[in-house]
């Protein structure tokens, strides 16, 4: 047995994605550590090793091969290719013999036998390692998808808006490789409802993170109730600096005024919504570039009116880009036809999902997220007074203990009628010893609360009056104002920002609740399933209390 100058150094080859081999560093217990030698698959030495099996003395090779130079530089004198199933899987490399003699034929036979037995074992080891790496990669992808799903589902609305006379439904089904779909509802204090639907390019965690950012930006941009075009413009400018390259967001933003059915909308490159009216579906077109592509964009604003019986459909491309078994696409024409065909306002989403299932057939693997949001206006708005839903008139309520009834009456819900309410309140409290200033403050507060009740509570329906009741106690005057549009709490007052309004970053409106809060000593709001009652209280000032009648 020949004595080798060095322990037979095992250069464990590693196979790369580009099919090159690298000779890994030997384990640390060996005496010498050689640099890792990369052998690209197109190096001439690879073809040579495959064509000339057996031990090869590198000094005798005449090849223009970078790998050969590297091997020689690393001190390799004899290389024995490890070939498995016609593939070079590694090399057994030896330095010069310690005796400084050439390797003998016996040495070579021994090494060839060793290589023949080692090659398949090395190949098996490589395959095992490759499979382990692939399993880890799969697990990482699954983990990322789980995170993406959690991000997305956490940020989607947990509850649907409840608006008298309207139905709002939503459906969201993520694809296996989660896309970046999202939708959102933004209730405003004046009773309007913001509607958002969007889709981020890309999938998985990057899309989910951009979706989360966009949702926050939109909520911030929309918080003052500005027009849809302005909101998209601001959101785009905020998103542009931070969005990763090659990503963008399509998004439709609309504001619905439930009292009138008016829908203002602007579109940042999202699929056009459909408006179904009298069983005919129409696209709602408004032009605008997707968010995040370039700053300074302008967004066209449009308006339509949703009449009783109408339905609005917002959706993402997961539905229209679904494929049948014959690779036909569901497409916009089919969706538009289905929206028009669907009769009634009940369950358009279910109707469309059934049609999608019929189109794709069983066993369809969903290609992209499917998101659907519908807003439907019921045939006629329910009237709590006429359908006996439990509305209790102020006239039927006992006067609270410690209070005296000064007056009680109703005002029909019509623009301008708040003047009638404030005039009658002034008459009711004229002899209550309040100063002129206090009476003026109370009148304005009553006018604003009555306007809110007529507009946001009763939607200016003439058959739904606003009820008022004026009470006096030893300490205070109270005015109760009741509408018939309960069921959801009144939104919190947001302090109007005049500077923002002057800069047209905030709507000029939104002063009503603010004025009330500043003009009376207390404002209490109670919400019942059928009505809201606003209670305004002004305390008698000490100086006047003694002058007031008993």
């Amino acid at each position, binding site marked *: 047995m020949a004595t080798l100058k060095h322990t037979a150094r095992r250069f464990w080859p590693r196979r790369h994605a580009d099919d090159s081999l690298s000779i890994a560093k030997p384990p640390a217990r060996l005496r010498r550590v050689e640099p890792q030698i990369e052998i690209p698959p197109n190096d001439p030495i690879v073809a040579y090793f495959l064509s000339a099996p057996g031990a090869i003395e590198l000094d005798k090779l005449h090849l223009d091969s970078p790998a050969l130079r590297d091997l020689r530089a690393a001190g390799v004198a004899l290389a024995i290719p490890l070939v498995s199933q016609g593939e070079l899987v590694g090399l057994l490399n030896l330095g010069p013999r310690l005796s400084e003699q050439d390797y003998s034929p016996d040495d070579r036979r021994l090494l060839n036998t060793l290589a023949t037995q080692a090659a398949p074992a090395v190949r098996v080891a490589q395959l095992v390692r490759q499979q382990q790496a692939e399993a880890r990669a799969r697990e990482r992808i699954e983990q990322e998808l789980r995170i993406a799903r959690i991000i997305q589902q956490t940020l989607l609305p947990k509850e649907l808006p409840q608006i008298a006379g309207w139905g709002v439904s939503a459906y969201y089904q993520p694809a296996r490789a989660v896309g970046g779909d999202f939708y959102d509802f933004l209730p405003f204090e004046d009773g309007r409802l913001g509607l958002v639907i969007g889709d981020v390019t890309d999938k998985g965690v990057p899309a989910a993170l951009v979706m989360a950012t966009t949702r926050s930006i939109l909520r911030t941009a929309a918080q003052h109730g500005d027009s849809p075009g302005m909101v998209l413009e601001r959101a785009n400018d905020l998103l542009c600096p931070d969005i990763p390259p090659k990503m963008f967001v399509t998004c439709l933003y609309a504001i619905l005024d439930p009292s009138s059915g008016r829908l203002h909308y602007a579109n940042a490159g999202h699929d056009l919504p459909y408006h179904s009216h009298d069983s005919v579906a129409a696209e709602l077109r408004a032009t605008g570039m997707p968010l995040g592509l370039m700053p300074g964009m302008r967004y066209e604003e449009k308006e339509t009116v949703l009449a009783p019986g109408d339905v609005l459909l917002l959706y993402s491309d997961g539905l229209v880009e679904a494929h049948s078994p014959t690779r036909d696409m569901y497409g916009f024409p089919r969706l538009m036809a289905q929206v028009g065909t669907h009769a009634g306002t009940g369950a358009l989403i279910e109707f469309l999902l059934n049609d999608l299932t019929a189109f794709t057939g069983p066993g369809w693997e969903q290609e992209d997220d499917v998101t659907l949001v519908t807003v439907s206006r019921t045939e006629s708005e329910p009237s709590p007074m006429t359908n006996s839903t439990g509305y209790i008139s102020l006239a039927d309520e006992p006067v609270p203990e410690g209070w005296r009834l000064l007056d009680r009456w109703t005002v029909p819900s019509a623009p301008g009628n708040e003047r009638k309410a404030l005039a009658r309140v002034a008459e009711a409290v004229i002899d209550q010893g309040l100063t002129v200033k206090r009476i003026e403050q109370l009148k304005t507060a009553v006018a*604003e609360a009555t306007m809110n009740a007529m507009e946001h509570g009763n939607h200016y329906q003439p058959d739904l009056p606003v009820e008022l009741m004026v009470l006096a106690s030893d300490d205070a005057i109270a005015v109760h104002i009741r509408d018939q549009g309960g069921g959801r709490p009144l939104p919190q007052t947001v302090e109007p920002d005049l500077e923002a*309004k002057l800069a047209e970053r905030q709507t000029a409106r939104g*002063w009503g609740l603010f004025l009330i809060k500043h003009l009376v000593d207390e404002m209490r709001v109670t919400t019942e399933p059928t009505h809201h009652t606003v209670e305004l209280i002004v305390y008698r000032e000490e100086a006047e209390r003694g002058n007031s009648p008993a």
Partner: protein
Amino acid sequence: MATRPLEARVRQSLPRVAIIELSGEVNGFAEETLNAAYAEAERDNPDVILLNFSDVDYINSTGIALIVTLLAHARKAHRRLLACGLSDHYVEIFTITRLADFMRVFPDEATALAASKPN
């Protein structure tokens, strides 16, 4: 109670001062009248536009919003918008809403014009 729709009369007083004399109610119905009067007042490119509220007996939150819109237009065009003739109650409303921080409020037209004269 009889309601009085807003009426507006525009007149020139000092050079480069336009006065909009308002009478009636500043509410949601007043938008068209108010905007038309403002456009007329702007026609001669005045430095100052004075809103005279002496004969206005009611301003509601929608009316406040209309005034905010006029003020925004005036500021964009580098014009001064002034107010006069407001009752004590509406002076308080202008103070609460901070409108008084952005448009000077005078007790009457004479005081407003005196303050508008170029130095």
